[in-house]
């Protein structure tokens, strides 16, 4: 057992919060896409990776981190739109496994293409000067950039909530997440909604990538482990539940961070243990609804 000073523990909790925020961004996208389209998007991790790479390239070209932060998710989101329109939509009417399999193949293609375009070794980028350095939080020094990540994610989540709660489109999306058949029966052009949702989900993944990039560097494999962890987060929260994605992301972020502190060897496996326990106790995750994922 390491020395558990309150300061160290507090620092760890903050770290867990940053980790959790990245999970939340990824999980929301995955959950939205699954809830509405019953599509398990295996290429989500690759889109996250693209967000980092595209963002870094934009930063090198424009010199502005703000530009990269805004444009990278938009570009990745646009790619998502294209993927939905030209690949996933063709699978309409087929079994639920086909989109999963297709996006699995897509992830291989995207990762390898990234390696071809940007080279084999990966990119490094430092956060902008203004966000570099550490802030004295009283109990510990904490990197400013990580606080920035927390702030940006919180803002985006609020924006997303407003969009879903206060706009008509948001209403349709929420309804569609809960009962896709009914929404179609009510006469909505589900195709347009899918298009939009896949784009938003992809954009969120891209945003997670550009946010995470300066903390860890960008390399082609960065999406591979995080996609599995993101799936765990979504499943624990309940496929299709946005509240579930948020709660689960934050909780699992803390679990991973604290496990790394107290029992580092278990850090890799704790997400799976958590998921197994949650699923065996609550069949459809914490907030999911039965019948949605079958």
């Amino acid at each position, binding site marked *: 057992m390491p020395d558990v000073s309150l300061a160290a523990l507090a620092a760890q909790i903050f770290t867990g919060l940053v980790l959790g925020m990245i999970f939340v961004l990824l999980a929301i996208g995955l959950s939205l896409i699954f809830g509405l389209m019953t599509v398990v998007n295996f290429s989500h991790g690759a889109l996250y990776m693209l967000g980092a790479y595209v963002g870094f390239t934009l930063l090198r070209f424009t010199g502005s981190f703000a530009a990269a932060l805004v444009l990278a998710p938009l570009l990745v989101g646009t790619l998502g739109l294209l993927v939905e329109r030209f690949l996933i939509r063709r699978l309409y009417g*087929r079994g639920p496994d086909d989109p999963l*399999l297709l996006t699995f193949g*897509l992830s291989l293609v995207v990762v390898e*293409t990234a390696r071809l375009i940007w080279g084999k070794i990966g990119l490094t980028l430092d956060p902008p000067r203004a966000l570099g350095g550490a802030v004295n939080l009283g109990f510990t020094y904490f990197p400013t950039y990580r606080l920035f990540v927390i702030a940006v994610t919180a803002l985006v989540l609020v924006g997303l909530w407003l969009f879903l709660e206060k706009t008509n489109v948001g209403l349709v999306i929420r309804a569609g997440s809960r009962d896709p058949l009914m929404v179609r029966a009510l006469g909505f052009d589900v195709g347009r909604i899918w298009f939009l949702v896949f784009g938003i989900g992809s954009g969120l993944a891209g945003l997670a990538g550009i946010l995470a990039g300066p903390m860890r560097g960008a390399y082609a494999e960065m999406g591979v482990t995080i996609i*599995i962890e993101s*799936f765990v987060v979504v499943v624990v929260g309940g496929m299709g539940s946005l509240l579930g994605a948020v709660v689960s992301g934050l909780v699992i972020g803390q679990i991973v961070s604290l496990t790394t502190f107290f029992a580092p060897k278990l850090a890799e496996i704790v997400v799976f*243990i958590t998921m*197994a326990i949650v699923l065996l106790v609550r069949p*459809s995750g914490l907030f999911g609804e039965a019948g949605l994922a079958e």
Partner: protein
Amino acid sequence: MRGVATWVGRHPVLCFFVVFAIFPWVVPYTSLATQVLIYGLFALGFNLLYGYTGLLSFGSAAYWGLGAYGTGIALAKLKVGSLWVALGLGLGAALVGGAVFGFFCLRRRGIYFAMLTLAFAQLLYFVGFHLAEWTGGDDGLRGITVPPLTFPGLSIPLGRSVAFYYFALVVVGLAVAALKRILDSPFGAVLQAIRENADRATACGYDISRVKHLSFVFSALFAGLAGGLDALRLTVVPIESLHWSTSGQVVIMTLLGGAGTFFGPFVGAAAYLVLEDSISFLTESWPLVIGAVFIVFVLFLPRGIWGTLTAGLRGR
């Protein structure tokens, strides 16, 4: 042509033996043929669960790995002298794993089922990684010496590629025959009923949870046997045997060949491995190639190579 197709459909095991007896001469080198046989068996097991029962699992690597490590540890650590005992121990490990994990995973359906299978496989990977005294950890299990094949009065060493190939052919052939029996039985019919419409099968009075569990266990046994054979082939069991990328590979192979068809798994394994072998020195971007091929198949050839061929021959 249709006559041939019907005949093949009626005598799959015989055709299997005929084709694979000459297979080493069709491919560039023997070890590749052996690889196709072994991964074909692995895919056969996965196909039973996915293609015939309709259950998509992300954790097949667990049973392949249990079979591989079981056989490997028997030979390397327990110094078991007999080939059959070693393979048997690998099978036993896969049986236990399949029975226990299956019990838990099958309590859920759909994507939750799939994620649970993944969780158990990752758990095993973690255990295998850290139990380094037994498994060799991430360096892999080495020190596997393959005993000769012994019959009364005859001992055949399996060191040469060709000898090992024909040994594997016999073992895999027996498994293929077993699968035929399973599919032809009433049990096999219920499996396929479950794939078509699980609720209806229940309504008809079948105990589908018991049937699903049995299917899961059979699938694990095939995977475990394949894993054990691979341990003998490579004389090393890498930790990657338990990693989800191994599970992913068998999914691709089954789909390429044709899920739900009898020979699909072998066709798919052959296509994947021969392609990988030939592409290997042409381009460094093998994942790009296989990913693109896979996407094309999902979009345009969802029945896979064998599935499309046989459907065409049957005039559908």
